[in-house]
């Protein structure tokens, strides 16, 4: 808590994994698989997974923030150090993003096809869409780390914004 450290984000990731595991292992609240019924999560599992998602996202962005912004800020301007590797990574990820976008649209068209009975592959659609969002996030992170000029401000405590 003293600085933008990695201790709490790491702990959040471990705790998140434990909650996912609890949701998976809990016999009392396990996904209901009744004969002929659509499997569904119980309220207990939903609660555990909701907290696990928050902690995972928090842990992930906490570690990323430490990598991108450092653990302590010191006023001044800091120039980035661009190199070829992030440029290549950016190009590769951009190509991957285009490929996945095409695949995503294809999966939607496939789901709207009467000849195959409008088969809606929801998990696949979500997986591809999620991957696209993650790639976009990584692209912005690479740009911020290697190509964006960093400026740290020391603002006066009394401001006149918004009033």
């Amino acid at each position, binding site marked *: 808590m003293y600085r933008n450290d990695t201790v*709490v984000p790491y702990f959040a990731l471990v705790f998140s994994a434990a909650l996912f595991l609890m949701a998976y292992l809990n016999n009392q609240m396990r996904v209901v698989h009744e004969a002929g019924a659509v499997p*569904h999560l*119980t*309220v207990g599992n939903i*609660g555990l997974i909701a907290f696990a998602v928050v902690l995972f996202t928090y842990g992930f962005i*906490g570690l990323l923030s430490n990598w991108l912004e450092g653990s302590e800020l010191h006023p001044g301007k800091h120039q980035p150090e661009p190199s070829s590797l992030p440029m290549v990574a950016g190009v590769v990820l951009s190509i991957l993003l285009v490929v996945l976008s095409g695949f995503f649209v294809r999966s939607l068209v496939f789901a709207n096809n009467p000849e195959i009975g409008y088969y809606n592959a929801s998990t696949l659609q979500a997986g591809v869409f999620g991957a696209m969002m993650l790639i976009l996030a990584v692209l912005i992170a690479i740009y911020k780390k290697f190509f*964006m000029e960093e400026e740290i*401000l020391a603002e006066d405590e009394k401001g006149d914004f918004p009033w």
Partner: protein
Amino acid sequence: MYQWLDDRLAIGKLYAKAFRKAFPVHHSFFLGEITLFSFVTLVLTGIFLTLNYEPSIRPVSGSLSGGQEVPAAYYSILYIDSLPFGAVIRSLHHWAAHIMIAAAFLHMLRIHLTGAYKNPRELNWIVGVFLLVLSIVTAFTGYALPFDNYALTATKIGYEIGAAAPWVGKLLSDILFAGELSPTNTQTIPRLFPIHVLWLPLALIGLIGAHLAIMIKQKHTQPKYAEKVAPGKIVGVPLFPQQAAMMGILFLVYIAVTTFIAGAFLAHPVQAFGPPTANTPPVKPDWYFMWIYGILQIIPANWRFEFLGATFGPQFWGGILVPTIIILGALAIPFLDYSKEKQRYLELPSQHPFRTSFVIGMLMFYIMSTLAGYKVDLGLSNALLWVLVFIVPVITGVVAFVILKAVYGKDWNQEVEVKFIGKGSAADD
């Protein structure tokens, strides 16, 4: 183009004033942003759902229900799920609601543990408490909308608690549910729908706007190290482009993770429960109501009396009185732990053992009362649950306090300080 706009709207001044506001950097600040992005996701996915949902229980039939006559609201859920990506968007909406409540809870926990509610931020803490309560109420009003057997039965638990409010219970249920909540009340869904998609979200937008405006005006609390870097100043990155880039990254990561989960676990598949019938399935309320449900489970049924025509029964004690006391207690926190000095920096939880152990005790209370919600499933006795719900949290808090005092106590701090001073003197020499 920029010059043209600047001449007319003075956007350069806007940039200097608004976009260069300094945002301190600390990982714990992201919990509030996760809550905010959950709300944004709920609005975006909610727009899609609103365009395809029919708020009515008139009987309809079609290929999606296998020719069976079902309520229109239920059928429209089947229709949404059949659309390409429709099931994922509905699932995303459902998961975002759960994640928003979980994130808001953890955000408030962080504020509490670091003392960020103190002078001058008391008002924003109060707005935050109302935001959490309103988020839960909004989620509750959306629960019955799919109008399947499970959702209707689960909503009935909350409905019965609300209806048990002395003197105003009937009025409350009339406002929220347009009368009694039953599979045949044709007015309930048309009443819940605008409350869920319009009035409560508008109230949430108003409160979120106030929360953010107050936060910007009062500035963030900062990590403690900033006191050494630039005393009395706000050390941070400008809103644009640096903070905006981090917010963009977080939003995309949030959407990615939530979409993965929404696709892997399609939330609330209505086909699993079917349309409402006379048979009520064995249900439990959502996890954020489970602790209230747990308290209801352990309060004896004979705790009941009449006063001025109103009945004070177990549903009043467990469902209304206990949550009201906790909400009032939460609202009072900044005034019970009042600070005359302006709170500028995050306090370390280890240096405030009473507050930290109180939070740990309260967490244990929520966990134990949630466990009490599984009283029948786990075959737990009432006596044991009373101990678990009311005694174990107190013991947990006391043990936490003793451990915190022992590990981070005064002597230990002094020892560190002596070493530090010693090193400093050596360097000076």
